[in-house]
Every structure is written in C-alpha cells, then in structure tokens.
C-alpha cells in the first residue's frame, strides 16, 4: 500500500499500544465471553515478562530442553552455487521437535502453569505447532487437545501420530475448508467453553491481543541470537533478513530485534501457491486487503462480500488466509517488504539445499530459501543475508514424493 515510504523509527517501535494495536491493525475482536480471560492473560503475561525467576526458568528450558542457542551457519556451497551475497542460515531446524515453534510453546506452557491452568489446547496446520505443544504438555504433565483440519490430518499423518504418541488428543475439524483457519475457529470454541481451566496456546503472531505481542516476544530469541552471532562472525550487521510468512511467527521472531537497525532490509516471503494470478495461493500481504478475522484486524484473503477465501500452498504451515497484524503494519510503513514464492520455486529450493548443504528444509522455510537466492544475486558479493531456516523437512518428504509422482 505505502511500500515506498520510509518509516520514522518510532512508527514501528514500542508497539503494540495499550489496546493491542499496530497502527490500524491488531486489536481485540472476540466475543464478549473471551474479553475477561484475555485481560487475565495479558495481566499474567505482563507480570511474568518482568519476573526474573520466570525469565530464568524460560532461559533454562530453552537451553537445556530446546537446545538453544541455535547455530548461525554459513552455507558456503549454497552461497557459491547461487553466486552473490553470503548466505547464512539461522538453524531453527535443529531445535527440539525440529522447528521454531517450540520457542513459543515452552514460554506459553510455563505461563499456563503459573496461571494454574491444567489443560492446554492448540490449533495446528502442518502439525509442527501441534507437536511442539504436545511436547511441552508432556514435559509439564498437562492435558493437551490439538485441533487440526481434517484435510491437514491427511497431509500430515506422521505429525498426527507424533502428537498421539506424546499423549495429546488430536481432534479433526471438518467445518469450512477443513484446514488451519477452521482449526483456529474450533480451538476458540473450545476455549470459550472451557475457559476456567484451559490455556489456549496460539502458534503464531496473530489472534486477539496479547497473542501477537506475546508470541513475538517468545520468538524474538531467534533475532537476538542471530544479531549477536552475525556481529561475532562478520563484525557487522547483515544487509538483509529473509523469512517465510504464514501467520508470521518465525519471521517476526527474527525481524523484531532488528527493527531499529535501519540498514537491515527485512523480507517476508509468502506462499504464491500455483501463482498469485491463479488465486490459488496463501499471500494476503501480497494479494489481499485489510479485514477482521480471528480476533485481529490484518490483511486477509477474502471475497468481495467479506467471506474468507480458501487458500492453497504446498506447505500446510503457510496455508492460512491471514497474517500477524504487526506484519501488516511493517508492510504499510515500508519497514519490511513482502514477496511471494510459488510451490515449484519452493520445491526447487528444497532440493537445492538438500543436495548442496545436506540440510533438508521444511517446505515452509524453502519459500524463504527460494527468495534468498534471488536476493543474493541482486545484492551481489560482499553482502550478508540471514535466512531463517525455520524447520526441518523430514515431515514433508511424503508431500515432495507425491508431488513428483513417487510412491513411498
């Protein structure tokens, strides 16, 4: 919308405001029953954000259970093959459970325990957030129910079984488009019904306030580490950061600690699916418009009547019609740029990284890798680019095989 405008640093810093707004985005758009519980959550979050003992416990969990810090890896062969900027991978794929999602679920589960909640619920698309939630629920001995679109359960059967092994109940959602957005609706319905003993762990930087800010703050460990690591390895800040954006939690986690570093360009990569022109995509920032869904105002994929559209991406984790409200504001202010990469481009990047570096990326992360190749050539030698390798690709091998007509 206002992509070329240079923001004043204060336009994007210190947000959200008191009522959860990032510019015109974010906010609190939920039924009355949830207003009280969300106020309670916000109070608890603000209290423990400043609580040294809680923060110490969180740090310990991230170090000893998740395996942080994750390495910042110089992908030499990939950089050489691409021919241009130096490409660095922030290795969130090496976290326990294989993706960045666990940074957030560890944090929210600790918060749930402090709030005296005994039951955890979550929505999941690809299953990564569901697995990360089931994992911490097992670790803390909390009951866990995960809502998952029936279509996604078919696409991600292995993650469904992982969740069950971890003791979670996985509930198929058959309403609407039977994917992530419908799972989110169903989790909200559960929460409104069981709000006394239940904590809803949202997996991305979307939803009603305080979720977008809270999930961002739990994920910002990615960017804090990456910033220190690149300074240590190169003696300077990078020229650009690249991350995939579905709801946008891995991207926001990487970007946020760099928001004030005006020389660092931020690129969010959405799923162009079969191509933006086909309508079969999941790119609300590139091809949608602002609206209200799932508790916040943000860019959405919607029709002329305000009904939410079905989305398509080869990557279940990006297959969502909305996006975190802070991304919407970073787009409008021009602080970050949002681009889109097709299924085929992401698959090509998946193969490249696997063959050249021996690292099999998640299909979500492969979208960021594909754009990073374009950007590396554009910026040329001497430039430094950090790509968030948000998850590992083991979960996707059936999808890749099926796409290529191979029966496993």
């Amino acid at each position, binding site marked *: 919308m206002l992509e070329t405008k240079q923001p004043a640093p204060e336009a994007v810093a210190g947000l959200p405001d008191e009522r959860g707004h990032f510019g015109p985005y974010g906010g609190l758009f939920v*039924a009355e029953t949830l207003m*009280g519980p969300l106020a309670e959550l916000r109070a608890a979050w603000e209290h423990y954000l400043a609580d040294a003992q809680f923060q110490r416990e969180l740090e310990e969990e991230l170090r000893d259970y998740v395996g942080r810090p994750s390495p910042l890896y110089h992908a030499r062969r990939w950089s050489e093959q691409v021919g241009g900027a130096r490409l660095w991978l922030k290795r969130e794929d090496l976290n326990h459970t294989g993706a960045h999602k666990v940074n957030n679920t560890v944090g929210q589960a600790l918060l749930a325990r402090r709030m005296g909640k005994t039951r955890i619920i979550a929505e999941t698309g690809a299953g990564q957030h569901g697995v990360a939630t089931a994992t911490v629920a097992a670790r803390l001995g909390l009951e866990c129910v995960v809502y998952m679109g029936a279509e996604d359960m078919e696409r991600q059967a292995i993650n469904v079984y992982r969740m069950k092994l971890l003791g979670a109940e996985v509930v198929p959602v058959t309403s609407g488009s039977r994917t992530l957005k419908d799972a989110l609706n169903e989790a909200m319905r559960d929460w409104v*019904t069981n709000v006394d003993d239940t904590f809803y762990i949202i997996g991305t930087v979307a939803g009603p306030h305080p979720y977008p800010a809270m999930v961002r703050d739990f994920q910002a460990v990615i960017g804090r580490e990456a910033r220190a690591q690149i300074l240590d390895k190169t003696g300077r800040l990078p020229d650009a950061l690249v991350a995939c954006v579905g709801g946008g939690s891995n991207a926001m986690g990487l970007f946020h600690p760099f928001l004030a570093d005006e020389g660092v360009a931020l690129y969010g990569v959405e799923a162009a699916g079969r191509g933006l022109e086909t309508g079969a995509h999941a790119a609300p920032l590139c091809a949608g418009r602002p609206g*209200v869904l799932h508790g916040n105002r943000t860019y959405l994929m919607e029709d002329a*009547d305000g009904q*939410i559209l079905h989305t398509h991406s080869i990557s279940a984790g990006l297959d969502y019609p909305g996006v975190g409200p802070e991304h919407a504001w970073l787009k409008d202010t021009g602080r970050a740029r949002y681009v889109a990469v097709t299924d085929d481009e992401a698959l090509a990047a998946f193969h490249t990284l696997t063959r050249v570096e021996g690292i099999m990326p998640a299909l979500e992360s492969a979208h960021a890798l594909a754009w990073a190749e374009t950007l590396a050539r554009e910026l040329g030698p001497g430039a430094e680019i950090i790509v968030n390798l948000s998850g590992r690709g083991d979960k996707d091998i059936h999808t890749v095989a099926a796409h290529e007509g191979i029966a496993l």
Partner: protein
Amino acid sequence: MSRLAQRFAALRRAGRRALVPYVTAGDPEPAATVGLMHDMVAAGADILELGVPFSDPMADGPVIQRASERALAHGVSLRGVLSMVRDFRHDDPDTPVVLMGYLNPVETMGYEAFARAAAEAGVDGVLTVDLPPEEAGPLLAALDGGGIDPVFLLAPTTSDERTRQVAAVARGFVYYVSLKGVTGAGHLDVDAVRRRVEHLRTLVDLPVGVGFGIRDAASAAAVGAFADAVVVGSAVVSRIEQHAGDPAAARAAVAELVGELRAALDGLPAAAAVRQAADT
C-alpha cells in the same frame, strides 16, 4: 423511540416476555427466508434475529455453522440479507429485526454504507459478535446516524466494570450469554442465569435478553420467568436442517416450534407477570 424500544415498552405494559427466534438468512435457501420470518411472527415471535452468514463463525456451535455453510453455498451476501429485510418490511412494518453476525462482512461493505443500507431496509438492531465496545466506536457512530440500535453481548465472564461500559453504549436491549460456550451448547444452569440476570439489572437500565443454550419450551419458560427476552437460535435452525431439502416443511416445523415456545412463555406464573407489570 426506536422500534425495539417501543416493542419492549409494549411487552412490559402487557406483562409479557419477548420471544426472539433466530434463523440464518438464506438457510436452507434464500427464497425461504422472508416467508420464514412472517411465519415466525404469525406463530408468536415478538422480535426476529436474522443471522448474517459468515465463513468463520467463531462463536457458533455446529448447528449454526452448518446453517452459514448452507446459506453461503447459495452465495448469500450481506447486501442479499438486507434485501430480504426490505422484502419482509414491505408486509410487516412493526416487528423489530436484529441482524446478528460478524464484523468482516460489515467492514468490507463499509460502516457508513452498511448503516445507510440497513436503515433503508428497515433493520432495527445490529449485534456484531466479534466487536466489543472497545473497538466499536466507528461502527457505533455510523449506526447512530442510521437510527439503528447497537446490541451487545454480556457474558458470565463479564466484570461489573465492563458491564457498565457495555451498558453505556448498548441500545435496544443487552443480550446475556447464558453459558460459557458457543451457540447451541447444552449445559444451561437456569438458577445461575437467574442470579446473574438479577445482578445485571442493578447495572443496566436496558431490557435484558438471554440466549445460547435455550433449546425447548421448558427452558424457554424457565428463563422467561426472569428475562425480558428469550432468544432461541440453534433449536430453530435444527428444525430447518431436518427439512433442508423441503423448505415448505422447514417453515411448518419452525412455526410449530415458535408456537410451542410462545405458549410456554405465556404460561408464566401470574406472580411473575404482575411483578413485571408493576415495574412499568
């Protein structure tokens, strides 16, 4: 005085409770809705609540979710819903109509354009489920310009402070959500609702309607003993769903249920009616 306020005043004078049945506009098919609305009035409805279908009805249980899906399969839009209200209003200038739905279709149409078109169509109240007062300022201003009453929810989790904030901006009536849950849930605790409604009356001057979880004549009568209005949604929509392939049968089944609910509400103990009449 708005049509909603007039209707509640008249009911109060008569010592009666408002029966407010809900249907989703365009369910089971767009051509059935206006007839259904007239049938419900003929069977004893005092106020009609008309659901605006939405792709992601987060606060609704499975029955109303499926009604939304049936309506959307016919391409029912917010403008289409307003045109149904206009058709209904052509033959019924008196019965108040409250739209219940979610914010995004309204936001897409534009608040001013929506308020103007809704007022022209003869809409009396608008309940936007996912719009709490904190975010409602611009829509409230637009509705005010159209003379439309904004109806808000109150919930078991609503604090007294919030109740006062809601009461300060609500008009027509307030809608007390009788349980923690979605529409059509099955765990109504009538005594708890009664205590809560009695407490709300110390904080809110508007009539208090109660809905979510009222499924039959018995629960309607029990809630009608203390509420000013009884909202019945999923039970009505279930009748439509049972006859989704036969709109005429659906209309007959809905009229039968509304008639039963009316009889149950009118069979209230005389003492309750006297107390209510004495209030006016």
